[in-house]
């Protein structure tokens, strides 16, 4: 296989990692919404933690985006 | 293909003009930009030409537009921000009229091209940067250094604030562009369903009622989005201008 083709295939596979981040984000926001509907008065207070969880989870997705970008533009 | 949802966004050259190897052709996009400016100016000039103390209907519409933008600018940037009123009002009218023009069938939506919205956003951001430096000199850079940050973290935080600042024109333009593009594609796809279902005979015509109702509802939503996006664009412009006038508070 040519190295060029392997690079693009690798970038595509690396993007699968973002799907995992997507699942995680769905869990976080879904659970936040479920909790917020049970106790709406407490929801606003937990918004900061929601964003914290979002950021930490999305960071892992960003790592796979980084790997994909590096395969495409740097290697 | 008649049902191609992307076809409406194609740029066609009406009068090919080429200057020094660069393409300056007058396209359908330019035609509709000219039409937008002409319609907005003509409306404002004709509606206010009476200058009645008791406004006519048209005059009160343009007075409402004036009051709306002026109130928004005064709220966000203070009375000092009113010196930017001509720019903000022109931007608001341009985006609003261009969005509403796009709602006519067979018309071209100028704001559904990212280069147009990006140019508008860059106009805003460059105004902010130039005015900020002109007015405050290097003091404008205080915008990037928040108060109460430990000294060790200042380089990192400043870098993040700079990136956050630079991302503003992108998010400003992408938001307007994505809303208009997505809305018009959805509209076209649903109305395409009506056509392709109604060719399927009696059952198809009956089934076509559903996407037809959806198209009507989406058209109403698109009018709301057209106004809302012009509003959001203007509000954010006012907030960014506020940064140029009062960089640190």
């Amino acid at each position: 296989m040519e190295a060029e083709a392997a690079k693009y295939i690798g970038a595509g596979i690396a993007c699968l990692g973002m799907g995992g981040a997507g699942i995680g984000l769905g869990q976080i926001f879904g659970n936040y919404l479920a909790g917020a509907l049970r106790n709406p008065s407490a929801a606003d207070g937990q918004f900061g933690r929601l964003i914290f969880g979002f950021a930490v989870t999305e960071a892992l997705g960003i790592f796979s985006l980084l790997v994909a970008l590096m395969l495409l533009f740097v290697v | 293909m008649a049902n191609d949802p992307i076809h409406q966004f194609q740029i066609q050259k009406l009068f090919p003009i080429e200057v020094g190897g660069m393409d300056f052709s007058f396209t359908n996009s330019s035609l509709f930009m000219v039409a937008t400016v002409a319609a907005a100016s003509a409306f404002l000039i004709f509606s206010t030409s009476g200058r009645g103390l008791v406004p006519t209907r048209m005059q009160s519409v343009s007075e409402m537009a004036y009051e709306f933008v002026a109130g928004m600018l005064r709220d966000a940037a203070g009375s000092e921000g009113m010196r930017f009123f001509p720019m903000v009002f022109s931007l608001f009218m341009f985006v609003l009229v261009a969005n509403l023009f796009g709602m006519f069938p067979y018309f071209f939506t100028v704001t559904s091209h990212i280069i147009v919205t990006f140019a508008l956003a860059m106009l805003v951001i460059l105004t902010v940067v130039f005015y900020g430096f002109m007015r405050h000199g290097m003091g404008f850079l205080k915008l990037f250094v928040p108060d109460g940050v430990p000294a060790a973290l200042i380089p990192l935080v400043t870098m993040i604030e700079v990136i956050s600042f630079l991302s503003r024109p992108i998010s400003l333009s992408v938001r307007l562009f994505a809303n208009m593009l997505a809305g018009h594609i959805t509209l076209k796809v649903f109305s395409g369903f009506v056509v392709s279902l109604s060719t399927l005979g009696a059952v198809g015509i009956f089934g076509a009622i559903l996407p037809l109702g959806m198209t009507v509802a989406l058209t109403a939503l698109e009018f709301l989005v057209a106004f809302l996006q012009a509003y959001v664009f203007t509000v954010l412009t006012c907030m960014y201008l506020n940064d140029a006038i009062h960089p640190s508070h």
Partner: protein
Amino acid sequence: MNSSSPDQKDDNSAANPPEAGLSGRRDQLNRTLNERKQEEAAVSRRSTGSATGYAQAVKMSSEFIAGIVVGAGMGWLLDEWLGTSPFGLIVFLLLGFVAGVLNVLRAAGQIAEPGARPPKQDDRSD
């Protein structure tokens, strides 16, 4: 004109100089007018605030993605310019991610704008 006087007290005080009753009535009218104005403002603010959840979603995600795109772009340009490949891309993409989260928090009104005046904060919910 007592046709729509809000209470009878004004009529009782008509023996006094009429200005007292009139100004009292005007104050009351002003008060009700103010209340109604505030109600209307609250209603209109609420309706623009939650006009379409879709617009809100596009706003948030465009803020987030813009941060990442700008960070990656800056890193890539620095790499091209200084020849520090690939570290510029790595560092600036992560910084751009942080800036994106910051943008989202600002758009949600959780953190003040850098140039914001504190009492103006409720106006930021565009």
